[in-house]
């Protein structure tokens, strides 16, 4: 019971005028710090010894210029092992005009709707696990998959007793940094992405909380491999480069990605499952060096339940095959059983603990593990993570 008080009532909160919303400026931010410790193999960072190179910070500002016109921007910086290095970037920025509920358009840099969670993969506070299932949402691919610069059309439409559909379609390009040299004597330059396009169709079914979705994305990378002159005859002699080729190898890499999704979220329960394939095609004069066609497979099932307002356990099982034609050796698969607990210490501060029991080495980087081939790494290994996030 609230104590009686003779103090005057507090003044009403200042409100934006929704007719113009000129004062409706919203500011939100988050700060995360995590640690990762693995057994046997390094994963994402120099994690065998334990690593705290797992930080994220972001803040955003959005406002309405009219009831149907919004603008927003988010700055983001992170570090995850060798990635990020706290370099501030525009995570997203947009100008969004919604003509009707069934049609809106936004231009700028927008998060890519792919699967259930790609566009919110950075947002630790929005989920239970620290790492989303890495088969579908590889955290080290963040720079390639998370946002595109261009245009997006979106909307939703009620279907009467059949529920509702939501749709988002986009086209544009990605901001790509030149990757580091892939091997001694080989460098990469002239990196370009002529296009990326795709979309997601979600069906909010008549069963309360049950959503089915399908996503598709297509993109093309172009770049040049440059070999030191001494390497060219060596590669030619073993058939990796065609006779008469020079030290520069232009490459086109087309990728098509699709995923189907099912999510059931009702009350305190969340169940999700997704299955997808990514199809990559290299177009180059050196098919022996760059496999012309690869299909990989990714899927997971996930469940979480909020037991109390401050305690939510969860689990998932995630599987990744880099090449569906090769599934036998340890480098050909990555199976991940993860258990997570989330503690909401206050409405704006949380702590998570997580364990992963891994089978396979397909998700590991040879360069981070001082070997030439991930086949040489330990097949069974574990990862333990802790992370705390404050947000408002």
């Amino acid at each position, binding site marked *: 019971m609230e104590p009686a008080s003779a103090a005057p009532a507090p003044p009403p909160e200042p409100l934006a005028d929704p007719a113009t919303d000129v004062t409706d400026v919203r500011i939100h931010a988050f700060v995360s710090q995590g640690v990762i410790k693995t057994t046997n193999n390094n994963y994402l960072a120099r994690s065998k010894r334990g690593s705290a190179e797992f930080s994220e910070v972001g803040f955003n500002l*959005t406002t309405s210029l009219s009831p149907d016109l919004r603008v927003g921007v988010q700055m983001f910086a992170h570090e995850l092992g060798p990635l990020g290095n706290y370099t501030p970037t525009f995570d997203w920025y947009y100008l969004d005009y919604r003509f009707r509920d069934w049609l809106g358009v936004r231009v700028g840099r927008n998060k890519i709707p792919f699967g259930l969670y790609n*566009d919110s993969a950075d*947002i630790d506070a929005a989920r239970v696990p620290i790492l989303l299932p890495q088969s579908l949402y590889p955290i080290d691919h963040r720079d390639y998959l998370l946002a595109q610069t261009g245009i997006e059309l979106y909307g939703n439409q009620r279907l009467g007793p059949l529920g509702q559909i939501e749709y988002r379609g986009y086209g544009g390009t990605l901001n790509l940094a030149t990757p580091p040299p892939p091997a001694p004597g080989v460098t990469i330059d002239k990196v370009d992405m002529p296009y990326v396009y795709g979309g997601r169709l979600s069906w909010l079914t008549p069963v309360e909380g049950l959503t089915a979705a399908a996503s598709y994305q297509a993109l093309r990378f172009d770049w040049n491999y440059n070999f030191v002159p001494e390497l060219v005859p060596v590669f030619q002699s073993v058939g990796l480069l065609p006779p008469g080729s020079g030290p520069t190898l232009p490459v086109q890499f087309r990728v098509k990605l699709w995923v189907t999704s099912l999510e059931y979220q*009702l009350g305190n329960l969340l169940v999700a499952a997704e299955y997808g394939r990514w199809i990559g095609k290299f177009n180059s004069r050196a098919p022996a060096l760059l496999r012309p*066609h690869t299909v990989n497979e990714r*899927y997971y099932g996930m469940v979480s339940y909020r037991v109390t307002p401050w305690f939510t356990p969860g689990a998932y099982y995630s599987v990744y095959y880099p090449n569906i034609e090769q599934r036998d050796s340890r480098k050909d698969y990555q199976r991940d059983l993860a258990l997570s607990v989330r503690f909401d210490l206050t409405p704006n501060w949380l702590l998570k603990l997580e364990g992963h029991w891994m089978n396979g080495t397909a998700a590991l980087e040879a360069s981070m593990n001082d070997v030439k081939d991930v086949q040489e790494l330990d097949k069974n290994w574990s990862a333990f993570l802790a992370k705390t996030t404050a947000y408002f």
Partner: protein
Amino acid sequence: MKPFRPPQTAVSPSARRRLRVLALVGSCVLWAAAGVTVSLDAASQAADGYQIIANERNPASAASREFLADVFLKRAGRWDSSQSAFPVDQRSDSRVRRAFSLSVLKRPVSAVRSYWTQRIFSGRDVPPPELGSDDAVIRFVASHPGAVGYISTGPIPAGTKRLEVR
């Protein structure tokens, strides 16, 4: 140069096994969804203690629960009259918010907060403003034609009207 191989179309026995497992998981999800929905529908009927108010100039006198949920989750932004809709929430720890959330949005306030966290930081949208009392909601709704809010049960304040939920 080797030609591109066509995409794989044959389904291997192991792939069939995985598809069967996925189909089984999907069936379980659908079955669980149907069962839990029935039980929560019954529970939400017991949740009461709120009423939905709109500005008195709003021509609508009733709205479906689904439409109201869309408005408060900002999936829908307009009334049937094409006027922009402006939902206003109450504080997340208030009793009336909990009742409204379970009954109309069909999810607890914590799940709604999670929904908005996802929307805020992915740049999709921001939640309705949260006001601290019934009086603040009444003043907001009474002074803005497209506004809609919810308050504790009682007399309908001047400048607003009760919106029936179909």
